[in-house]
């Protein structure tokens, strides 16, 4: 019977095509780390790696949310502003003497609510996500300056302890609590995408919205859900940022959305949707973190050369990733 010949001839050792981008990123990340270690002795300290996580914990959380959105083929430009708004709001509420637990609850509600509303507008009124979330970005940033035009310090003991608690080994290497929270978010995000209906609907939606609709999937709910999830992740990211800086500042996290999108895409997620993994996003965030670390370790770059070098590294990275991807095809 000829139908048997339809079984793809696949060598068992061949990596499935869909994992290639992520693996390419991983390989390049390791190469970059090796370069750092060979150039700068202090680079090999374990704490350097931990610092990358400490300094990018909130970015990681936000990027997980963005992964959901991009997988559906959408985009969320509001994340940076929502992060800032959450931090700003927490700081302002704490300053007003509110109970930290209540502040946490409120802060964690506002982001997803905004996300939910944006999702509804995108779905029901069929307006392009880029525009809706751009308006969301203006709105959230406007809220920041509306709350206060100068930064508000946080002195709350709970916040302070969350910020300064060090979880580490006897040799003095440590991570912050934020890193653990970020890890939990990553694991939950990965699980939801791989093992729940919602997660699979996200992929289906990104693959072909029309088909998803005709297959009877809850397209609307899924779409709204991803923006709410992204809002939630931004809110968590905002809280982590307020732990990280112990303050809320109106101008913080400006332009963060581009970093987040870059991280997600470098991690192998396709902007048109339907293909990508949370693990890739983790790698993408690490790539950005390691590039930054390399530049500070060098410490001899001019301000403008810093930008050019970041652009150059980004280019080299994407080019290599692309070449590896092509070869494996």
């Amino acid at each position, binding site marked *: 019977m000829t139908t048997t010949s339809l079984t793809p001839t696949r060598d068992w050792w061949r990596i499935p095509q869909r994992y290639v981008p992520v693996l390419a990123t991983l390989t390049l990340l390791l190469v970059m780390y090796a370069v750092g270690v060979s*150039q*700068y*002795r*202090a*680079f090999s*300290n374990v*704490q*350097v790696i931990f*610092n990358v996580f*400490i*300094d*990018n914990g909130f*970015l990681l959380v936000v990027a997980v949310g963005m992964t959901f959105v991009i997988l559906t083929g959408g985009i969320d430009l509001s994340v940076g502003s929502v992060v800032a708004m959450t931090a700003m709001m927490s700081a302002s509420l704490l300053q007003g003497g509110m109970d930290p637990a209540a502040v946490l609850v409120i802060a964690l509600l506002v982001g997803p609510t905004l996300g939910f509303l944006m999702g509804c507008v995108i779905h029901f009124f069929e307006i392009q996500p880029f525009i809706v979330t751009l308006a969301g970005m203006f709105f959230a940033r406007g809220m*920041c*300056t509306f709350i206060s*035009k*100068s*930064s*508000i*310090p*946080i*002195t709350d003991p709970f916040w*302070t302890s969350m*910020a*300064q608690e060090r979880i580490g080994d006897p040799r003095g290497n440590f991570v*912050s609590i934020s890193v653990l929270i970020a890890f939990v978010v990553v694991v939950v995000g990965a699980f939801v995408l791989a093992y729940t209906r919602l997660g699979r609907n996200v992929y289906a939606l990104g693959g072909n919205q029309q088909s998803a609709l005709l297959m009877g999937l809850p397209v609307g709910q899924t779409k709204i859900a991803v923006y709410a999830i992204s809002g939630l992740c931004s809110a968590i990211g905002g809280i982590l940022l307020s732990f*990280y*800086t*112990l*303050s*809320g*500042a*109106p*101008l*913080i996290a*400006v*332009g963060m959305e581009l970093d987040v999108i870059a991280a997600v895409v470098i991690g192998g997620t396709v902007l048109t949707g339907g293909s990508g993994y949370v693990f890739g996003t983790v790698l993408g965030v690490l790539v950005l*973190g390691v590039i*930054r*670390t390399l*530049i*500070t*370790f*060098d*410490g*001899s*770059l*001019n*301000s*403008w050369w*810093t*930008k050019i070098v970041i652009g150059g590294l980004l280019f080299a990275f994407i080019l290599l990733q692309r070449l590896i991807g092509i070869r494996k095809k």
Partner: protein
Amino acid sequence: GNSDTGETPADDGKLTLGFSQVGAESGWRTANTNSIKESAAAAGIELKFDDAQGKQENQITAIRNYIQQKVDVIAFSPVVESGWDTVLKEAKDAGIPVILTDRAVDSADKSLYKTFIGSDFVKEGKLSGEWLVNETKSATGTVNIVELQGTTGSAPANDRKKGFGEAIAANPNLKIIASQTGEFTRAGGKAVMEQFLKANPKIDVLFAHNDDMGLGALEAITAAGKVPGKDIKIITIDAVKDGMQALADGKFNFIAECSPLLGPQLMDLAKKVKAGETIPQRILTEETTFTPEQAKAALPNRKY
């Protein structure tokens, strides 16, 4: 980079300074960076310089990396005032002294840094206001002021506005009739001023939070057929070269200086801190104010 840039040669006696700059967002900032680089070289200090591209996260990253690299002294110009306690504690625990430049932090625990060297933005605003109060003390009617603010939410914008407001409260005739952000840029200053001019038939004074916005506004005023410096008096802050030139030409009326040349003082302090000398918690940069005549005199030998 060459293979030893990442480590501190702990024993060759050469002092290593890690400096994290805000960014390169203005000519002022560039002059500041250059001053630091030049004076480090002159003082024989090894400088590890990092540009944070205007992001606090990046500055914190940089400071953490300086701690890993075990530099002798860390200095930085904070992007924002708040949010430094955690990383400063880490520096303190690692035994590395920290010097703040240009902008302050709002930490309650003053032991987290050795000193803060920089201008006083409130004072700059105040000096501008006081000059105006003095200028207009004979005025009988109301004096209409328009204000070009810096980037909304930034420390210099907040403080200069505050200082200026406090000073002009002394004269009830002085009234701010419009206040908008010009984002610290010439284009912003010009666009906002154009609308101010159309909306308000009588503007007597312009207060701009920096020279660049003032220079932009200058063009708008000229285009509207008014004479800057006469029909509308212009007060700005910074005293960069173009601003000083305008002042000398009589187009501006007053500039409160905000000097970017912190380098020599910073290197001096770094050495003292390293040697364990006690130094004051707050050091003001040597700054002054300029009137057109003073500007004419000072212009030939200004460095930036």
